[in-house]
């Protein structure tokens, strides 16, 4: 499986009057991620299915990513929680994108690459996803069975789009 882990794009800031789950992408976040999607296109990325967290900022990021997807967009609550085997059990397809949040995406990447229990890899996670950043993993979607193909910060994806 080719797995593309995507952290949601830049969203509205936290505020006491705004529910965290309902924070939308900002205009700037949208524009930047749209450029990132063009960069991903340059890399030849395409997806059979996009899984996304139910939180609004992840929904909106998945919407922008949808132009690279030939199949369904599927919501999963497991992307808004600490990593668990239940998330991996849901995945189907050969080229798949997951849109989620930190710190869960870092944990997921470390777990898939290093194996062990999620709690063991949580603190040694060598990945730090910036908003709109992606990691490309390859292998069997099981703990310790994937390898990292690439790790792109958003600025690199946008630079690719400009080439």
């Amino acid at each position, binding site marked *: 499986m080719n797995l593309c882990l995507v952290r*949601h794009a*830049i*969203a*509205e*800031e*936290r505020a006491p009057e705004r*529910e*965290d*789950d*309902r924070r*939308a992408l*900002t*205009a*700037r*976040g949208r524009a*930047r991620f749209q450029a990132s999607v063009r960069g991903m296109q340059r890399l030849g990325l395409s997806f059979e299915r996009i899984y*996304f*967290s*139910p*939180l*609004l900022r992840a*929904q*909106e990021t*998945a*919407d922008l990513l*949808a132009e690279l997807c030939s199949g*369904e*967009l*599927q*919501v*999963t*609550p*497991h992307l*808004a*929680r600490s990593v668990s085997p*239940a998330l991996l059990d*849901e995945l189907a397809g050969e080229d798949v994108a997951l849109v989620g*949040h*930190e*710190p*869960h995406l870092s944990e997921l990447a470390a777990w898939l690459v290093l194996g062990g229990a999620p709690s063991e890899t949580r603190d040694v996670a060598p990945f730090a996803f*910036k*908003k709109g950043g992606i990691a490309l993993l390859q292998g069997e979607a099981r703990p310790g069975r994937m390898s990292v193909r690439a790790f792109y910060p958003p600025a690199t994806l946008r630079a690719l789009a400009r080439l």
Partner: protein
Amino acid sequence: MHPCGGGQGPSSNLDLSDDAEAGLEERLESRAAGEALRTVNDESEQPISPAGWTARLEREIERTRTAAEPEGVHQLRVAAGRLSVFLELSGRRALRDDLRTLRRHATRLRDLDVMSEKERWRDVIDVPRAHELAQLLEALATSRIAGLLHGLHCVPDLAPARARVALARFEKRARRAAQQLEREPADDAALHRLRRRLRRWRYALEWLGSKSKQLVTLQDALGALQDLSIEATRARALPDEERRERYLTEIAAESRAARARFDELWQEHGHLRHVHTSEAAP
């Protein structure tokens, strides 16, 4: 309380480490975007909220889980269809595939419930209904449905001005389907397409507080034809040859009558050229 139902939910600790990108510049841009939007939208108009239909969908899912009543299954489908149209009016793709999958499961059961109202199917419907109900209940128990409901609670209200812009697309698609049917009046696929597009146009209008009795009438007539088409598919699979032929003959006659009724309404409404809408009663 639902994570999005108010206050800070279980996911509120996510993304604590905001990037430097999300600084003053972003706040200024966000404010500018908000101001630009306010100039487009008439602030006197109330935003359109999906909360009522989201709550309705939750209730009908629960009703189906506990009682499996035909009416609950029907209302579940309706709520899923209306919310899908709301998302499209909002320019959102996310969650629509999830709603479609849910609706597809419910539709298979609903089709059998409609058939079971006819005497000729009563002795053979229980087994397939039990099978489809089990499939639906299995789907309702998945984390996808939990994610869908969570996600729907996160969807923001919609500005009527934006919805009105999107509404034109629903009408255009319905009129294009009407033209296709005029070109190929015997094409079942064209009828099916028209039925779906009329339904979505009607729902879109209703989100904006408008109604069209003509759309409802046409949709009902097309629905009757669709029900008979499903019956014909079932009849063709009957193992008893005599019963199969008898049913197919009956259904063919009923389909001709239903088609004549639709054609009559279609003429009456000028092939969709004379559809009028009105403000819905409060």
